[in-house]
């Protein structure tokens, strides 16, 4: 029997699983080792940005749909879950899902123009969408309290076992475990999708839309699906953020947030699975570090630094950190077949 990839599948399976297990153990033990609550808070933020970066990369890196309004999904998820739990007294846990669903609906709406638009035209449309959403959050004062934002959002409720035992979700460490779980789930499903029949269809349409149509790929429907899935993840991240911080404002929907997400993905490596994760963790840490510099010199220096990083990465490191690491690992694991 002829097989296409037989020889590669066996490539160091045990080493790979071993390193994954060690990585997981480190991630789980981290809040026990690092007890500083501020650093734990940064770890939670990093987790939220990981979700945002993965979801943006799914749209832009895998499907080639340049969405410059991604923060809108983040904000919609946050506002939806916050308002639902404040006014309808629905559990914030359910709110995580509902925030994702409502963002997914808007994702579907934004996906519709992508049937006909691509590249810069789609990008401009998405900026318009995100600004409209921000304006609604700013000006629908009766619902959103405008630029004051929503505060007093209930935190994730304790999970009770019987009468007197419960897991509380008030500390940074407990929030860290929730976001860690969300990140695991999202990485698992995105990885699975990436390697699936859906994944190869989506990559085909990114490469050549007409070519994809010619082999029976209904590009409109696939793009719609990608928008919906991506928005769902970003919306869930937003809902989690709302219940974690307890305070949200229209700033969440700003282009600055989208810009940060894009920088993270570009720094990590566009179109890869691990790239957005690495990029989000590195840049969240960096940006919190810069906060001290900002306080000292009293200037909003972070966006300037992000901009410079983005330009440098695009000029000199197009494949991101993953490309750099990949270069190393290829160098050490070079197989005779790989060299031409």
């Amino acid at each position: 029997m002829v097989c296409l990839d037989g020889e590669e599948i066996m490539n160091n399976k045990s080493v790979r699983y071993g390193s994954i297990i060690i990585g997981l153990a480190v991630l789980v033990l981290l809040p026990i080792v690092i007890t500083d609550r501020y650093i734990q808070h940064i770890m939670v933020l990093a987790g939220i940005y990981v979700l945002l970066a993965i979801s943006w990369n799914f749209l832009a890196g895998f499907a080639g749909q340049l969405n410059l309004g991604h923060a809108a999904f983040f904000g919609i998820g946050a506002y939806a879950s916050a308002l639902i739990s404040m006014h309808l007294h629905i559990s914030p846990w359910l709110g995580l899902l509902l925030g994702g669903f409502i963002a997914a609906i808007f994702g579907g709406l934004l996906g519709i123009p992508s049937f006909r638009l691509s590249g810069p035209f789609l990008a401009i449309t998405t900026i318009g969408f995100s600004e409209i959403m921000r304006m609604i959050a700013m000006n629908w004062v009766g619902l959103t309290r405008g630029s004051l934002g929503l505060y007093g959002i209930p935190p994730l409720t304790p999970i009770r076992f019987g009468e007197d035992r419960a897991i509380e979700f008030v500390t940074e460490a407990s929030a860290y475990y929730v976001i860690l779980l969300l990140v695991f789930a999202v990485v698992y499903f995105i990885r699975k999708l990436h390697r699936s029949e859906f994944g190869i269809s989506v990559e085909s349409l990114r490469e050549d839309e007409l070519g994809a149509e010619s082999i029976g790929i209904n590009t409109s429907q696939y793009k719609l699906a990608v928008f919906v899935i991506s928005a769902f993840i970003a919306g869930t991240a937003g809902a989690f953020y709302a219940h974690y911080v307890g305070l949200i404002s229209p700033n969440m929907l700003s282009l600055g947030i989208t810009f940060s997400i894009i920088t993270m993905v570009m720094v990590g490596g566009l179109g890869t699975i691990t790239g957005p994760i690495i990029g989000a963790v590195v840049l969240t840490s960096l940006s919190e570090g810069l906060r001290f510099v900002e306080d000292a010199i009293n200037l909003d220096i972070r966006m300037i630094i992000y901009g410079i990083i983005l330009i440098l990465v695009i000029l000199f490191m197009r494949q991101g950190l993953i490309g750099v690491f990949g270069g190393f690992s290829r160098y050490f694991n070079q197989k005779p077949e790989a060299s031409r």
Partner: protein
Amino acid sequence: MIILEGKKVTKRFGGLVAVNAVDFELRKGEILGMIGPNGAGKTTLINMISGFYPADEGSILFNNEDITRLKSSDINRKGICRTFQIVRIFPKLTIADNVRSALVDRKSRSPWKVVLDSLLKSNKKQSTQGIEEKAADLLNLVGLYDFRHELAENLPYAYTKRLEIARSLATNPEVLLLDEPTSGMNPKEQNDQIDLIHTINEQGISIIIIEHVMRVIMSISDRLMVLHYGEKIADGVPKTIYSDPKVIEAYLGGEAHVEH
């Protein structure tokens, strides 16, 4: 038996009539050659059959079913596949993935079913039975098996044309529309391409082929159809076409574009 039929098919671009009330028919198992000077409307006709342009007037029937208004992806799912004059392969995917992408079963599943299957079923179970073997067979057929791990963008031009044909065959078409499959090839590569097209045809696939190189089209076609300024001026076996005064006029009287 007629597998594909066009009735008074017309396409206008603004004031220009690119294809004017053209009737055509393709019999099952046949290779129909389409020739004509540049701008005669050959590619436009292929674009209409494959659903990339909507026809302004007339109708196109595939197995007696009207497909005139269908989307291009749906026409492929019915069983018609096309290639492009300027290849539209997937440059950043490997050769193998280019073919795999077309082997996904889309005939019996809607896009959303593919999404659900991809999310819920294990990746090994969901893939169409024997997808790897089929990909290997197709790559062997077009002679690209040894390059299967290369990115498609690294292929020389002549090979990209063959990759596109392999990808088309992966969708298991009844009718294949080939838009200048030997352009940009040297004579040796052209001969290989002729052999490949014959092999495909012997598997029972009916073919419409646009070609400028007379040597190729004469040796390959069962029947020829000549377009000139959007109108069909001749239709018949290659020998009679070759001596048809209208055809000679079209080729030599206008812009001469005969390559030998």
